[in-house]
């Protein structure tokens, strides 16, 4: 089974700082693998450990620095990886991003059986890239996946989490899965992993290499664009009270519940 694993480098959003001009400060902010993608990696590696003849190729569209996350994935047990990188990719929305990733997968990976993405990236946060890749390749998709629970004769069984419960679905390969945070944690690389990653030859492919035209990628290939970005308004807080004891605290709350017409 050939797996293509799509991962994205994102700024650590838990650590967003603002400049004086109300823009996001980019310097000094750590870049990390999109947290959902770390579960995608773990899920792929677990599948490789369970069934025979699985080969995992990781890819990312991004600037040259994104090499780092590909190496990190290799250190966690992925077989090999490549970057798709070109100045012309700048400003890509999810249509252009997914077209580029779909083209890279078709051009550079032979006979892919399974594409694993994260459900969301924590920066752009659209959750659209995975399903859009599936549409471009005409593959079926399963979104909001928690776990792969079985595989037999080209059919995967997966567990997905939806608003009102949990679904068990069967999907025929080739297919795209979009992973949520799993009930298991991504592994830490072992020393052999670091060595393998260090020695790995992570190639970088340009727009021409993946057979796309300038009008299909980046800003030109993107139907949407960000017209304005701003800091969200903060809700103004009210009083903060330090009561003398718990009874007084509870009494104040009860009065508030009455004031709010809850009771």
């Amino acid at each position, binding site marked *: 089974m050939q797996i293509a694993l799509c991962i994205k480098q994102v700024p650590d959003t838990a650590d967003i700082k603002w400049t004086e001009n109300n823009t996001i400060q980019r310097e000094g902010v750590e870049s990390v693998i999109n947290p959902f993608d770390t579960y995608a990696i773990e899920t792929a590696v677990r599948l490789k450990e369970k069934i025979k003849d699985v080969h995992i190729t990781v890819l990312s569209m991004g600037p040259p620095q994104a090499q780092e996350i590909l190496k990190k994935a290799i250190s966690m047990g992925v077989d090999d990886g490549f970057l798709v990188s070109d100045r012309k990719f700048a400003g890509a929305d999810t249509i252009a991003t997914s077209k580029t990733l779909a083209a890279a997968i078709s051009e550079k990976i032979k006979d892919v059986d399974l594409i694993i993405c994260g459900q969301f990236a924590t920066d752009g946060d659209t959750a659209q890239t995975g399903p859009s890749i599936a549409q471009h390749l005409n593959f079926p998709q399963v979104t909001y996946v928690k776990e792969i629970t079985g595989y037999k004769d080209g059919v995967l069984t997966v567990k997905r989490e939806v608003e009102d419960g949990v679904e068990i679905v069967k999907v025929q390969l080739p297919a795209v899965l979009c992973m949520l945070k799993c009930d298991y944690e991504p592994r830490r690389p072992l020393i052999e992993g670091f060595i393998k990653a260090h020695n790995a030859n992570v190639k970088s492919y340009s727009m021409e290499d993946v057979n796309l035209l300038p009008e299909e990628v980046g800003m030109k290939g993107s139907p949407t664009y960000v017209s304005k970005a701003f800091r969200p308004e903060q809700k103004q807080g009210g009083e903060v*009270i330090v009561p003398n004891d718990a009874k007084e605290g509870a009494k104040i709350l009860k009065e508030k519940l009455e004031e709010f017409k809850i009771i």
Partner: protein
Amino acid sequence: MTNQGILIYAEVTREGDLAPVVLELANSAQDLAAKLGGQEVSALVVTNAGDIEHVKSDLKSNGFDKVYIVQDERLAIYSTEFYSKIVIDLINEIKPEIVLIGATTQGRDLAPRISSSLNTGLTADCTSLDINEKGMLAATRPTFGGNLMATILCKNFPQMASVRPKVLKKSTFPIEKDTQFIEIKPEIDNVEKKVELVEFIKNIPSTGKRIDESEIIVAGGKGLKSADGLKLLEELANVLGGAVGASRAAVDAGWADHSIQVGQTGKTVMPKLYIACAISGAIQHTVGMNSSEKIIAINKDPKAPIFQIADIGIVGDVYEIVPELIEMLK
């Protein structure tokens, strides 16, 4: 320009009712249509072959000019392949200017397949919609974990947006229209269905109420230090007739199921009252609840960021204050 009108994908729930977000979209679409100089607002219902009178009457009293209905027993359960084909076919036929879809799990599964097939733009998980001075849809959405708001425009037609449930308001009064119901046959005979639902296990919330539907939510965080804390909050929720929610840290600790997590990677809620107990108020949590009408916070730490957005904050121990409050309310 040839594209005209607003089309809303009217999601039907597993129980066969209209998803609440559809009525939120309907209300917002009235506003957008007026700003566009009085365009038609239509809805598309895709469902199984059963009786849908209640769905029709909900749509009728929410201002739709036209409702397209696609019924077929193969559509009883949502399928990406069938449903996307149907929506794409209708868009190609009626050529709307704007297409709105609820950002539910179904909507977020469906919408990107449609936009990529039509090679048009899709703004994700919006929290407000407007028409700009050039008559284009300006859709605003939170990004970077709620740290940054972005207004997105689309160059192609239809302009598509998925809209977060529970953020836009429903209309408080009926907008009766002489709605035209149009039945159409799905063209799905040649669509290969490669995903099959084997089993569905419904979540049964401990209080019997789902957090995304409850008017009152009592939520607990890592500061509770054990699952017992959530039991205590459940008691308070029961007294108030509400549901229990949790922060991600509490979910990660294994005290609660992910289905009750509030925040960026959980649910967005907008109840009448949100009581945050032993929750620090990280941005990834507050993006999911800061539109609540009233917020009460109980936290030991007077500097906890949650107090900055709470209407009333009590500095103290949840384990001392909440039992007293339950006693007083009983």
